[in-house]
C-alpha cells in the first residue's frame, strides 16, 4: 500500500530501485532527481494527459512549482497541488499503480522496445491525474501532442465532469504500459542529454506552462459566467415572486425602490382597469347606447386617466428617476416618451385622423389644441434643457475644487425634475379634458378607444420584439417577414412615430 501511494511517496522514495518504477508518473521525477538514471524522455503523452486533466479540474498548477517539487523531492507539495480533487482521484492512481506494479515486471521486457512514437498514440487516452509534470517531456513529439491535446481540450470543455470521470476510469488500463515503457526507456534517455536537448526541453516547458495558464483562465471565465447566470436567474425568480412582472413585457429589476415598486403595481392595476373601460366603451358603441350613458362612461374614463396622473405625481415624489425614465412602461413605449409620458400634440395629431363624422368647427378646435399643446411642450422642453445645462455647469464647476458644495447645489437643481413631470402630466390631463369638451360624446368615446388600442399595440410590439427569433438578426429576409406579418401594428405605430 505504501509503495503505491503515488501522490505521497513518489518523490521521497526516489531510491533507484525497481519498485520505484512502479510509480509511473513519478518515474519521471526519479529521472530528474537522479540525473544518472534519467527518465526524462519518458511517457510524455502520459503527462500531457495529466495536464489536460489538471486543467479540466481547474486546479492551480505551476510548472515552476512542479519543477521545484521535482527537484526538491517533496511529495507533500505534489499532493497540495491538487487540493480540489476528491479522494477518489487520489485512490485511482494508487489502484492503477498497484496494478501496474504487479504487471510491470512481467511486461517490462516486452515493452522496452516501444518507441516514443507509439507513446504519442496512447496519449489522448492516458490521462493519469498524477502525471502533471511537464518538465518530463518527450521533446520529439511534444509539440505535436500539445497541439492535439489543446484542440481536444477546446472541444471537450463542456463535459468537464463526465470527462474526468471517464478519464479516471481509463486511468487504470493505460497505466501499465506507460509505467513499463518509462521503465523500459530509462536506458535511452542517458544518451540524449546534450545542451540542444536541454534548450528544447526548456522551451517545451515554457509552451506547456503558457497553454496551461490560458486554459485555466478560460475555465475560470466559464465558471464565473455560469455563476453569474445562476445569480441572474435567482434575481428574476425573486422579482417574479414579488409580483413585479405584471402586464405585458414590463421588466423589473431587483433594485426597485419601494415607491417605484408600489407605482409599478398600481400601474399594473390601472392597466387592467383600462382594459375594462375599453371593453365597456366598445360594447356600448356597438350597441348604440344613449348619449347620456355614453357620457357617463366617458367621464369615468377621464377620471381613470386623472387617477394615473395623480399616482405618477406621488411616485415622482418618492422616485423621480423611475417615473422620468419610464421604467414602469414597456421598452417600446419607453423609447418614445416625452417627460415620462405621451406627447399631447402627437396624440391630437393621431386622433384627428380617427374622427370620422366630424364638423369643421371641431377640426379647427383640434388644430388649435394641437398648436397650443405644441407651444406648451416646446416651453417645457426648453425649460428642461435649461435645467440640464445649469446642472452640467454646476457639476463641472466643482471638478477642480472639492465638489461637495457643487453636488449640493446640483441636488437642489435635480429636485426640479419632479416639477417638470408634474407640469407635463398637468398638460396631458388638460389636453384630455379639452378633447372631451371639443368633441361629441361618441367621438370622445372613440378617441379613448383609439388611445387605449394604440398603447395596447405598443405593448404587444414590445413583447413581440423581445421574443422574436434570434436568427432574424442574421437573416434579413426573416426580418422582413416578421415585419410584414405585423401590418396592423406596423401601421398604427407608424402613424404615431412619423410625427416624432
Amino acid at each position, binding site marked *: 500500500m505504501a509503495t503505491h501511494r503515488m501522490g505521497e511517496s513518489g518523490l521521497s522514495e526516489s531510491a533507484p530501485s525497481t519498485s520505484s518504477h512502479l510509480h509511473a508518473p513519478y518515474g519521471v521525477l526519479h529521472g530528474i532527481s537522479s540525473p544518472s538514471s534519467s527518465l526524462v524522455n519518458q511517457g510524455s503523452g502520459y503527462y500531457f494527459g495529466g495536464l489536460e486533466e489538471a486543467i479540466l479540474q481547474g486546479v492551480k498548477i505551476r510548472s515552476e512549482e512542479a519543477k521545484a517539487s521535482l527537484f526538491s523531492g517533496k511529495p507533500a507539495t505534489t499532493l497540495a497541488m491538487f487540493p480540489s480533487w476528491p479522494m477518489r482521484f487520489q485512490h485511482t492512481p494508487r489502484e492503477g499503480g498497484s496494478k501496474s506494479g504487479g504487471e510491470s515486471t512481467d511486461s517490462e521486457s516486452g515493452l522496452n522496445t516501444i518507441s516514443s512514437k507509439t507513446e504519442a498514440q496512447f496519449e489522448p487516452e492516458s490521462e493519469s491525474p498524477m502525471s502533471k509534470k511537464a518538465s518530463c517531456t518527450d521533446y520529439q513529439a511534444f509539440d505535436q501532442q500539445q497541439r492535439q491535446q489543446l484542440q481536444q481540450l477546446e472541444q471537450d470543455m463542456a463535459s468537464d465532469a463526465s470527462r474526468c470521470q471517464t478519464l479516471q476510469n481509463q486511468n487504470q488500463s493505460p497505466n501499465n504500459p506507460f509505467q513499463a515503457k518509462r521503465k523500459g526507456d530509462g536506458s535511452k534517455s542517458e544518451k540524449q542529454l546534450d545542451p540542444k536537448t536541454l534548450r528544447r526541453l526548456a522551451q517545451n516547458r515554457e509552451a506547456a506552462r503558457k497553454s496551461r495558464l490560458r486554459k485555466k483562465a478560460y475555465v475560470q471565465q466559464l465558471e464565473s459566467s455560469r455563476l453569474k447566470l445562476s445569480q441572474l436567474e435567482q434575481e428574476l425568480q425573486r422579482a417574479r415572486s414579488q409580483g413585479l412582472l405584471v402586464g405585458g413585457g414590463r421588466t423589473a429589476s431587483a433594485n426597485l425602490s419601494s415607491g417605484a415598486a408600489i407605482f409599478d403595481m398600481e400601474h399594473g392595476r390601472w392597466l387592467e382597469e383600462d382594459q375594462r373601460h375599453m371593453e365597456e366603451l366598445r360594447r356600448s358603441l356597438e350597441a348604440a347606447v344613449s348619449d347620456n350613458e355614453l357620457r357617463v362612461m366617458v367621464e369615468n374614463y377621464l377620471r381613470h386617466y386623472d387617477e394615473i396622473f395623480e399616482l405618477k405625481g406621488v411616485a415622482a415624489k418618492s422616485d423621480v428617476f423611475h417615473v422620468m425614465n419610464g421604467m414602469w412602461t414597456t421598452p417600446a413605449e419607453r423609447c418614445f416618451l416625452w417627460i415620462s409620458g405621451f406627447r399631447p400634440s402627437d396624440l391630437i395629431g393621431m386622433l384627428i385622423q380617427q374622427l370620422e363624422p366630424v364638423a369643421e368647427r371641431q377640426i379647427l378646435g383640434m388644430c388649435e389644441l394641437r398648436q397650443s399643446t405644441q407651444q406648451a411642450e416646446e416651453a417645457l422642453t426648453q425649460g428642461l434643457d435649461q435645467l440640464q445645462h445649469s446642472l452640467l455647469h454646476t457639476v463641472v464647476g466643482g471638478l477642480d475644487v472639492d465638489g461637495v458644495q457643487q453636488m449640493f447645489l446640483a441636488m437642489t437643481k435635480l*429636485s426640479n425634475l419632479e416639477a417638470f413631470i408634474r407640469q407635463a402630466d398637468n398638460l396631458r390631463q388638460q389636453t384630455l379634458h379639452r378633447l372631451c369638451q371639443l368633441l361629441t360624446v361618441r367621438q370622445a368615446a372613440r378617441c379613448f378607444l383609439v388611445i387605449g388600442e394604440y398603447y395596447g399595440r405598443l405593448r404587444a410590439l414590445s413583447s413581440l420584439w423581445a421574443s422574436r427569433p434570434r436568427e432574424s438578426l442574421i437573416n434579413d429576409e426573416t426580418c422582413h417577414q416578421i415585419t410584414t406579418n405585423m401590418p396592423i401594428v406596423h401601421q398604427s405605430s407608424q402613424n404615431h412615430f412619423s410625427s416624432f
Partner: protein
Amino acid sequence: MEYEIGGRWGYRWCVGSSSSSPDGLERVVRMASESAVVVFSRSGCCMCHAVKRLLCGMGVNARVYELDRHPFGKDMEQALMALLRSSSSAASALPVVFIGGNLVGAIDSVLASHINGSLVPLLKQAGALWL
C-alpha cells in the same frame, strides 16, 4: 398694523405688525399693473425659463422681474407665495404671471388656461397680442 387692498384685486389683505409683507405685496401689485404682461421669476430657475419661452413663443413681450436680483425680492416672493396659497408644496411660488394687472397664477394655471383656449383672449384683451 392692518392693511387693505381693494379695487382690482377684489379682496382684502390683512397683515400683522410686520412691515415687510405689505411692502412686498404693494410692490408686486404696483409692478404688475405697470405692464400688460408681467412675470415674476428667478434668474436660474428652469421653470421660470419655461414660462418665459412659452410667452415668447406666442409672440408676447412680457416684462420680467428677476426677484433674486431685486432689492426687495425676498419680500415680494413671500407676498406672492401667500397670494397663491400654493396647493403645490413647491419650494418656491415662482414663476408667477400677471396679465393686464390680474393674477393668472403659476405655470400650471398658465398652461391650463392656454390649453383651455382662454389665455389668448386674455392676452389680446390686455393688448399683449395683436391679431
